[in-house]
């Protein structure tokens, strides 16, 4: 059965980590649990609010990238290429401003594979405790 599914920072399968300033690193890394597949589609939405450690939003020119990785973490497929945080800007509602995945067809992310949201903020680093995201997609169970 395929049903709507939203992946957020609160999902128990998401690993959170502060990034290092000026390096593109994983802020949120989701690992698909056993017994489930994520069906990513070109119409799926990614929303992201990022905050620096000094309690302000990420800089507009910070880079944000979404990528899929196989279970080894070695084979990588971009889902949304590196774009400035200004494109995301913490928008979760306005459909004219939401960002869709950069994929041309449905991609199935299998058990134990990863979806990672990466951030490169000039300085200081991106803070996992105050940042949040969601990927509006579907899952097969």
């Amino acid at each position, binding site marked *: *059965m*395929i*049903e*709507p*599914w*939203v992946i*957020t*920072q*609160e*999902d128990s399968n998401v690993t959170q980590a502060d990034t290092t300033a000026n390096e593109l690193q994983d802020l949120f890394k989701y690992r698909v649990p056993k017994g489930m597949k994520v069906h990513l589609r070109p119409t799926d939405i990614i*929303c992201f*609010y990022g905050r620096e450690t000094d309690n302000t939003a990420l800089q507009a020119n910070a880079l944000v990238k979404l990528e899929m990785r196989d279970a080894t973490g070695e084979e990588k497929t971009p889902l949304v290429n590196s774009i400035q945080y200004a494109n995301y800007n913490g928008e*979760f*509602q*306005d*459909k*004219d401003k939401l960002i869709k995945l950069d994929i041309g067809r449905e991609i199935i992310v299998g058990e134990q594979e990863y979806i990672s949201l990466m951030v490169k903020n000039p300085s200081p680093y991106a803070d996992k*405790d*105050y*940042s*949040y995201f*969601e990927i*509006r997609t*579907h899952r097969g169970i």
Partner: protein
Amino acid sequence: MPQESKFRLLDTDPNIAEDSAFGTTWRDTWKFQCPSHMRLILKKGDYFSLHAEDSADAEYAAPDSLVQIEVRDPSEQKKINVYGPANYNSSKEFQDFNSMAQLDLDVPIIIKPRDFIVFMTKDSVGMDAASVANSYCRLITTKIVEVEGGKL
């Protein structure tokens, strides 16, 4: 002959039970049980809005506030996820249709008599009976109406 009409399901519906226990884990905040004379059809694009307050009388705040909607059979053993679990921020708009949350179903789901639609919430502060009373939700969906002789 059955016909479809727009239906607004509100938290004040007489067939909704409100949760009154305190908790910081997932809670069935509003639980609608479809009455015997009614059927609903949840469709892709149905609009959903929710305003939630915690036990400190403050509106839910990111990043640890989540919202989810499930459809359950009468035994509550079979569950279908129809929305979320998404950040609260995504579904708090009640006026601007361009900003309202929508269901993204592949196929319509028929809600039969005694089936449940459950609006679930979770945040780190928790909700109690008073905060549930201060909170509200709305799902704009479709009702199936039996029409005698083809006339409403």
